[in-house]
């Protein structure tokens, strides 16, 4: 109960810690996963991408022509929902708000911005030939 047991069903969908934790480490990327077409994603919103056993939330900030990706799991109540949250910014920093209890996380650093939740893992995104690609280190 107290020593960090995570529901085993969820555990396999959690990114391992050696995955990219910020966008500056793009040179470690081994796989650029071709997820879906740009137009499949909603404008100024997110969708969930499946990569192997992982669930990745991908966000299209069309207003600023930027893309971000993070784990789909909100660490607060261990719910696979971040992709359904509202995107936004705080002082310019792009963020995602969990639809359950509005915990917000920076999409640049993964840091929780309004509570003492643990960080979430963020992934680099690049657009090539009209397709959204997500970068993984493994």
């Amino acid at each position, binding site marked *: 109960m107290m020593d960090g047991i995570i529901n085993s069903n969820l555990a396999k969908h959690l990114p391992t810690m050696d995955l990219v934790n910020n966008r500056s480490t793009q040179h470690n990327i081994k796989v650029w996963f071709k997820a879906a077409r740009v137009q499949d994603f909603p404008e100024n919103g997110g969708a969930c991408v499946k990569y192997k056993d992982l669930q990745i939330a991908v966000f299209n900030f069309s207003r600023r022509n930027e893309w971000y990706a993070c784990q789909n799991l909100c660490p607060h109540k261990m719910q696979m929902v971040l992709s359904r949250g*509202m995107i936004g910014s705080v002082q310019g920093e792009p963020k995602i708000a969990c639809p359950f209890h509005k915990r917000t996380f920076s999409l640049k650093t993964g840091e929780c911005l309004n509570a003492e939740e643990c960080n979430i893992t963020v992934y680099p995104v690049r657009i090539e030939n009209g397709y959204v690609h997500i970068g993984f280190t493994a």
Partner: protein
Amino acid sequence: MSRVIVVGNGMVGYKFCDKLRSRSKEHEIIVYGEEPRPAYDRVHLSSYFSGSTADDLLMAPASWYVDNNVELFTGELVTELNRENKTIKTHTGKVDHYDYLVLATGSSAFVPTVEGVERHGVFVYRTIEDLNQIIDYGKKVKKAGVLGGGLLGLEAAKALLDLGLETHVVEFAARLMPRQIDDAASSVLTHKLNQLGITIHTNKNTKKIAGNGKLEGLEFTDGSSLSLEMLVISAGIRPRDELAKVNGIKIHARGGVLVDNQLRTNDESIFAIGEVAVHNNMIYGLVAPGYEMADIVAKQIAGDASRQFTGFDMSTKLKLIGVDVASFGDPFGEAAGCVPIAFQDKRNGVYKRINISEDGKYLLGGILIGDASQYNIFHQMVVNKILLPAQPESLIIGTPGKAEAEGAGVKSLPDTAQICSCENISKGDLVCQVTEHGATTVDDLKKKTKACTGCGGCTPMVNDILKITLESLGHKVKKTLCEHFDYSRQELYDIIKVKGIRTYDILLSTIGKGDGCEICKPAVASLLASIWNELIAEQDTIQDTNDRYLANIQRGGTYSVVPRIAGGEITPSKLMAIGRIAQKYGLYTKITGGQRIDMFGARVDQLPEIWEELINEGFESGHAYGKALRTIKSCVGSTWCRYGVQDSVSFAIFVEERYKGLRAPHKLKGAVSGCIRECAEAQSKDFGIIATEKGWNLYVCGNGGARPQHAKLLVNDVDTETCVKLIDRFLMFYIKTADPLTRTATWLNKMEGGLDYLRDVIVNDSLGIGEELEMEMKELIANYHCEWKKVVENPALRERYRHFINDDDQDSTLSFVELRDQKIPVDWNKKTK
């Protein structure tokens, strides 16, 4: 660097680690805790009975200790101490060396030596393990008692009540909480607790715990007895001083480790903090002084010995079983010449006592029962010796308009006034953050000072201080939506309407900045819906998740589905249709409070199919997901009921059909009752209609929820047409002027002029806007559409209802368990931490 061992991982022990680590990264911190889990919040222990889990109560998750480089050993009891070698030994035989030792072992429950305490069914109330035992045993019995009517005893009584047991409290003294409150206060509290179902027995000296193996009851010295199946003893605390005692550390005659103003024991490498420490003949059984001790010792070990512990104000405010209880300063007026002023209202369960100095100039202390909203300001008046007004009685029998008086009260406080006692933050600290460091929101203050982050009790005062300081700097304190829009909701309503803006994006580009956020997006979405009533699914990503998927998100991430059942009237065949569809998709079904049927557990990809079937059966969206009109509840009225004087069902259906889909700053609920017996509970709704012999009485601005409020009579005996016209005006006026997420009750409470003003605008048309409001409502009604019908018929919109964008798989993490022959999601607290 030096090695600090903390013995005990309770609230104070944890706080010490937190404080030391925030001052020094170098010190090694090692903690030994006897209990199997890390420090948890003992103050809120009774919430464990009403649904909190052990994890919810944790002060910090296990990962905190790792992240902060604090080595924590749980389930490890320190049994030996060698002061010469500066080592300790645990029950597992492990030996560890320290430079400083901090005893934070706390206390255990004091169990009096009464015959029979060893019987089955007798418990103490101290740890989560105790609670688990109480919960287990509580399942087998019906009638339980608490021995001890102090603070903790009443907490324990609340716990027993939450277990559904007949609950008794037995107190030796003549009154409850004898250390905090007086006889009159106890009598009001007793009355209130009786109403809640707790029986209080005072003046009872327990002679014997009767029974045969198992406890059967209590026998008292006055010859009376009380039969019980379970007993929780809460008769005080006993400091856990065993380790100190056998190793030559000085102990108080009645137990507890003696400390000086530095919280040092007679061994200068050993400190004691919290409930194990005796300072100046006092044991401090509250958490705030314990935190203060932790802070002082952390400072010293980090090299700053400037602060001393010189005693602590035992003023306290808490909610006991839902009843405010506060005692501050000198509650009993023991100072010479002190004069008490008291106000007692047993009917409402309110008692207020203030003790005034002989010269009438100062407040010395007092007691508040039932309503402790003035506690903060009274407490500050005592601590800071604020001059009393000429008629001090006005403080407790004052007029409403309390908020204003309290704001002014904050103004009169000196900068040294302590506002947040958990983190020891003064008014000056807060003011300085505003004037020197540019804080402009309560969030800024929270972040910079940690005020409000402990018990949260100081939040109203912090708010007031922020407001008056900003005003004193010449800032106009404006209610803006968030950092992206410099306007209030009402201003945005006008801008959207006048400029004819139809999308969030255009609004943001025109008058906003940044990318928006989870506050302004749904607020603007609601405004756009209230003004234009266009399909919200067209702008799905600015909606809260419920509005985005037109369903209510539930634990586990599935959704619930509520079709409209206007007025709660439904044909048997439609009932069967719901049954058939729920069965087909394996949904959990429940009747809602608003007389309709909720179907839970639908995956996001199933929603369009389910709705397609519902629509084919003649159902429409119930808008249960929106800040919109929900239901109009009705009683069966004159069609069937022998008492009914009007056809309340027909009227309820008419009203619900009229306003269905109407979006508002918050959800809207209504009801129609067919006679004065009020079976539809119309007076608890945003608008409620009660039939009279002559027509209808219209009530407005009631709500249930966390702070229930009865609706107020707007007009009486009006005909149906007038009634509808007035509701049109009322709802439109609310939609146009209320702040985001403000129910009608709060909206009215904040309205200058209150109900009289509202009646003037709505009924007497004092602003001359009546017709305009009716026209606007007419347009909204004309624009009604069933959102789900639009989605079901539109393949592009349907396409959005899938879990993965790149795969047709479902979310494999969804998991359910069975409860009473239906499915429910796996408890998410079992997934976290």
